[in-house]
């Protein structure tokens, strides 16, 4: 029986966030959801690092407020997380920028449709029929094999 304490709740929450993020990263088929899952996992990691510096009965590491000699929490994990959060924002913004670019080129962020359209474009550029690939799955394709370039030009999207 696991004791139901503050420790258990905090660690379960932090690790749960990491696991939810990892799970979402693998399972989702939408690129924006993948970026969101990554940021959830990152939040869980940050909470985990801050928890590693926690001390019971200790105050925030700022001098001049508590009596001298009071125990203070570890400042190093807090400093690490502080910069990690800002870096995380920058990385997510870069990821979203790439997503904007993908959406502009292919008109979708759904992974399966995207792969289909990209393969169509590649085989069109190479001048080979789409079905000639030895890696093509047998049987019916999940999507109608519309050439990506044609469907784009019909809608006026820049290739």
């Amino acid at each position, binding site marked *: 029986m696991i004791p139901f304490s*503050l*420790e258990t709740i*905090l*660690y379960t929450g932090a*690790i*749960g966030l*990491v*696991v939810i993020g*990892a*799970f979402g990263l*693998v*399972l989702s088929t939408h690129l924006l959801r993948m970026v969101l899952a990554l940021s959830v996992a990152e939040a869980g990691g940050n909470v*985990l690092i801050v*928890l*590693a*510096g*926690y*001390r*019971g009965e200790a105050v*925030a*590491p*700022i*001098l*001049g407020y508590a009596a001298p000699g009071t125990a*203070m929490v*570890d*400042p*190093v994990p*807090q*400093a690490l997380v*502080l*910069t990690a*959060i*800002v*870096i995380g*924002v*920058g*990385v997510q*913004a*870069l990821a*979203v*920028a*790439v997503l*904007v*670019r993908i*959406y*502009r080129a292919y*008109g979708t962020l759904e992974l399966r449709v995207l792969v289909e359209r990209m393969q169509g474009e590649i085989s069109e550029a190479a001048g080979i029929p789409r079905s000639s690939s030895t890696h093509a799955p047998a049987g019916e394709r999940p999507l109608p094999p519309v050439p990506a370039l044609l469907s784009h030009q019909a*809608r*006026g*999207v*820049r290739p």
Partner: protein
Amino acid sequence: MRNIASLVFSFGLAFLLLAIAAQLGFGHTPMIVGSGILTGAEADVGAANIVTAVVFGYRGFDTLGELSILFAAATAAGLVLGHRRLGAADDPEGGLILRAGADLLFPLLLLVGVYIVIHGHLTPGGGFQGGVILAAAFFVSVIAKPSLRLNHGAISVIEGLAGAAFILIGIWALVEDGSFLKPMLDQGVLGQLVSAGTMPLLSSAVGLKVGSELAGLLAHISESEAGEP
């Protein structure tokens, strides 16, 4: 199959992290570096906020590395998104409440951001947090009024000057005292606004750099043409 594999992976990850967490010991983790910093920070740096002392003093070189990661992300996003075509349609304007709210928030966010940046060595906060609030001040206006254009040239100049100031302070310490980014100047009285030597200067440089970088990055994203759905 893929779902089962990812389920197994996720539970394995959870088990691994739980095993590490169980060994850490909650509330009394060994803090060898941390306790050394806590006892020595007042004499070494003179900043009341020890977290800022760690970020700009003890780990100043890492902070420079983190700034360069942010710079690389901002540059890459600008490169990926490119310039918008002339005459490309803007996103629709926000409603009256959104625009009035953005106008109201702009000076307040600016004030809070500047306060947090320049009091970074005294109270919770510092260059990174204040810089993000400064960037948010500009970004709120851009979201409410998409036709608003941030001056990317001016943003790059501020960003470059702030980054150069951070490095120059570090090089000055290197020439003067033999170690890069060593805290310089008189430490003053603990808890005063002008104290802790170069800490407030480094904090302001980082605040300006992070603020202008994120504002430029977010403005780039919101200015980019989404294309037709």
